[in-house]
């Protein structure tokens, strides 16, 4: 069921004509500015477009079609109503630079979203502009740097990162002109405190932590870590990737964090969209407030007809500045706002309750079936890790083979080979929106694959067989780069 490349469907002169002016528009542009040959784009009918992209969509696994326990990504159900309402014509047609009196409805949503995010994180102020987790991280570290610079503390360039951290953490430190210093994790999954004490000093700008960590456990020494880092003059950055696990159970602000980013596409259920758009809003405590990225939404006191206003350069002169052309992924922010209003305070506490219940249930079922749990003595957060290293040793079947065999059984694979510390690992995050029945079916599939690994390993090595393509040649993809379609006539040249 290979679908042709859309260019291969092309017939010269064919087009979906009613989407562009029927009459040739006039112009007086000098020839020196004009392109001679039209760009190579497909020439197809509307129905061809509809069929082609509908068929392509059917070649995807998605939350709407499959259990998708991709660890650290929080692939929960995205309520349909959030999308439908964010796409109301007044919202989609609003120009970002339109006057505020024509934006009071949108801005009221944004102001209330800022307020709700303050409440669920324990931070004192929020900026909604960062467009993804990595940009939220960038904003956070840039604020930490700005804070030290504003105090005349110019030597603080080191960002401490546990070795279990997401790759964006050290990459962000570099982007901000800092140096990432990795510290090890203890066998029980918590940070090695001696290593931390040795790492901090007058060069420390801050530490980036995810809590619960990417190892799927809550960092129990967090208050002590905060004390050590603050004592050394550094600040604490909270990577909100795993906020789903503790929503309504603990506040990052109470743990001593100075700055945090929240992935709205994880905890607050905005769509993953095949890899984005995301949203990485940032929150801070009072000492970092002046540095928040702009614009933010403020509310004027009194009974003005237009109480909501943009806070920009003139209101916030110490800001690290702008991170996007306008105000970030506004439509995604609307979807998160709608989701939070649907759930309300109690619903958001149920998120962490069921996410954690599902993870711990699935972990104990797999443990009982003999799978090796990476941190068996610990309570799982909303996700957990199993290591397949013994099965790999015995059968030659790797974590990647397991992942592919799961696809054949109708499950998207968990995250593989992350975190890097645990060999042959699967990071499994079921989320709160799955039923017990779905979890049991997944566990059965895992057991079946393991049994088959012992009995007929080749069958697992051959997987997947039911997907549109079998395993792909990644080496060829990187060596014989084919990144752009070309007509046969050009290829034979």
């Amino acid at each position, binding site marked *: 069921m290979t679908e042709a490349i859309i260019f291969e469907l092309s017939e010269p002169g064919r087009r979906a004509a009613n989407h562009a002016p029927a009459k040739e528009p006039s112009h007086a542009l000098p020839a020196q500015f004009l392109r001679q040959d039209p760009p190579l784009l497909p020439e197809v009918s509307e129905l061809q477009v509809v069929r082609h992209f509908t068929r392509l969509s059917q070649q995807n696994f998605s939350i709407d079609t499959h259990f998708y326990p991709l660890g650290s990504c929080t692939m929960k159900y995205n309520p349909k109503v959030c999308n439908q309402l964010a796409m109301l014509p007044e919202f989609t047609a609003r120009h970002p630079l339109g006057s505020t009196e024509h934006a009071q409805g949108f801005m009221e*949503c944004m102001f209330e979203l800022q307020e709700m995010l303050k409440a669920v994180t324990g931070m004192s102020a929020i900026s909604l502009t960062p467009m993804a987790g990595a940009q939220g991280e960038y904003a956070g570290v840039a604020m930490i740097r700005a804070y030290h610079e504003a105090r005349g503390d110019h030597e603080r360039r080191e960002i401490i990162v546990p070795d279990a951290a997401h790759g964006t953490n050290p990459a962000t430190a570099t982007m901000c002109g800092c140096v990432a210093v990795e510290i090890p994790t203890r066998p029980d999954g918590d940070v090695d405190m001696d290593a931390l004490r040795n790492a901090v000093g007058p060069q420390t700008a801050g530490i980036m932590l995810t809590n619960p960590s990417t190892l799927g456990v809550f960092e129990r020494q967090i208050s002590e870590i905060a004390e050590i880092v603050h004592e050394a003059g550094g600040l604490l950055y909270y990577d909100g990737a795993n906020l789903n696990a503790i929503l309504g159970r603990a506040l990052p602000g109470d743990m001593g964090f100075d700055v945090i980013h929240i992935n709205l596409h994880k905890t607050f259920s905005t769509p993953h969209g095949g890899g984005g758009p995301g949203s990485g809003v940032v929150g801070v405590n009072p000492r970092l407030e002046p540095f928040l990225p702009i614009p933010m939404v403020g509310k004027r006191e009194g009974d003005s007809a237009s109480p909501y206003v943009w806070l920009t350069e003139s209101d916030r002169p110490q800001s690290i500045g702008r991170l996007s052309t306008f105000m970030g992924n506004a439509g995604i922010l609307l979807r998160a706002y709608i989701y939070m209003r649907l759930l309300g305070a109690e619903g958001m506490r149920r998120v962490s309750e069921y996410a954690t219940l599902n993870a711990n249930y699935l972990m104990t079922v797999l443990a009982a079936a003999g799978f090796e749990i990476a941190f068996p003595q610990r309570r799982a957060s909303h996700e957990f890790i199993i290591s397949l290293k013994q099965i790999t040793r015995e059968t030659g079947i790797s974590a990647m083979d397991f992942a592919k065999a799961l696809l054949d059984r109708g499950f998207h694979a968990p995250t593989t080979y992350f975190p890097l510390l645990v060999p042959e690992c699967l990071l499994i995050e079921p989320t709160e929106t799955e039923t017990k029945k779905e979890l049991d079916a997944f566990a059965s599939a895992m057991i079946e694959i393991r049994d088959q690994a012992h009995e007929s390993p080749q069958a697992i090595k051959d997987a997947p067989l039911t997907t549109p393509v079998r395993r792909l040649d990644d080496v060829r993809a990187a060596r014989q780069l084919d990144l752009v379609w070309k007509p046969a006539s050009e290829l034979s040249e």
Partner: protein
Amino acid sequence: MLQQIGIKDTEQLFDEIPADLRIDHFDSVPDALGEAAVIRLMRSRAAADGDAISFIGAGAYEHHIPAVVWDIATRGEFYSAYTPYQAEASQGTLQVIYEYQSMMAGLTGLDVANASLYDGATAFAEACLMAVRANRKSKSRKILVSRSVHPVYRQVAAGIVRGQGIELVELSLKDGCTDLTALKAFDGEDFAAICIQQPTFLGTLEDVDALTNWAHERTMFVVAICNPMTLSVLTPPGLWGDEGADIACGEGQPMGIPVSSGGPYFGYMVCRQAIVRQMPGRIVGRTVDLDGKPGFTLTLQAREQHIRRSKATSNICTNQGLMVTAATIYMSLLGSEGLRRTALQCHENTRSLAYRLAELEGISVAYDMFFHEAVLQLDRPVQPVIDALSQQNILAGYDLSATYPELGNALLVCATDARTEEDMDLFVAIMTAVLGQSEAA
């Protein structure tokens, strides 16, 4: 389930969180609303925004978007999938990105595109970083940027590149375009790149051939910032000057994305084949599977943060996949002829509007050569005029006086294909009244 886990109640699930950190409720978060109530709430919020008629461009352009685009892009299989790390289960998303990369290469006349960045401003910032990495003939960490580049792009990029010790040096303007005579001042100085926007933020057209050749003679890279809609009409960056630009980037929003308060949009980036390994972001390649059947996968991942960590080309992880899906559907529907007619309709509408407004006393067109945005010179401060029109449901344009004070009282207007003759009649009539003139004047 509790029994299986070996706990009595769900509170025990959180027993590793130290007691002094536990909370049992949220302060100041409203109670849940049913779906019907949420629909009522959001409809009333949307109504409060109203339906003003916009003549603002300045980096976001309202075009007709065929119903097909979002009907298909929001199918659950696209909307609720994630990054295609499991290629066999993500061929739909991967093939869409491959087709998108092909279309962007065609539009820009350059070799290879990535799978998108966040938006125009951040794509520009990443292009600056990439130019410094990729230009092996220059040791400079300075980049020339024309003042005709979108002012917020310059602001965002300056902030992002500063962290890596890179400086943006401004090129001044003359008659709304980069001042070619002022380039002499930079002769003999090493720069990693020059950045040129076409059409400019002011809607004018640069002599891109002269600028490109000047830069290449001095071993600078050329970074082109272009609105993809206009590339169906204007010379593509790959053909600028004798050798073409090295990197093209910009805002993808005009390709089927609604203006929606500024996002989500997507940034695009395309470059010469020789420097693809310095490109940030995800890239999709076509390869074969075990049976020799063609298929698609993420490739050149050794550049990226999840492999290279602190040595990655960028910290970027997310792209704007859903927006790229919409854009690919949009470009397929319009084709090059549909894009060309749409772009020229915007040009014709803006010209018609600008010269009609210029018939009023106190308004003149600042530069005669423009694509689909025009600078109007007013005889009075701009903001009060904008406010007065806004009262009458017309968004008159972008006030240039803060970002381009040297232009005096200047208003940037734009009339896309989404604006009708009636919209423009209304704009002219209300502007006439606001300026205190009678219709016949």
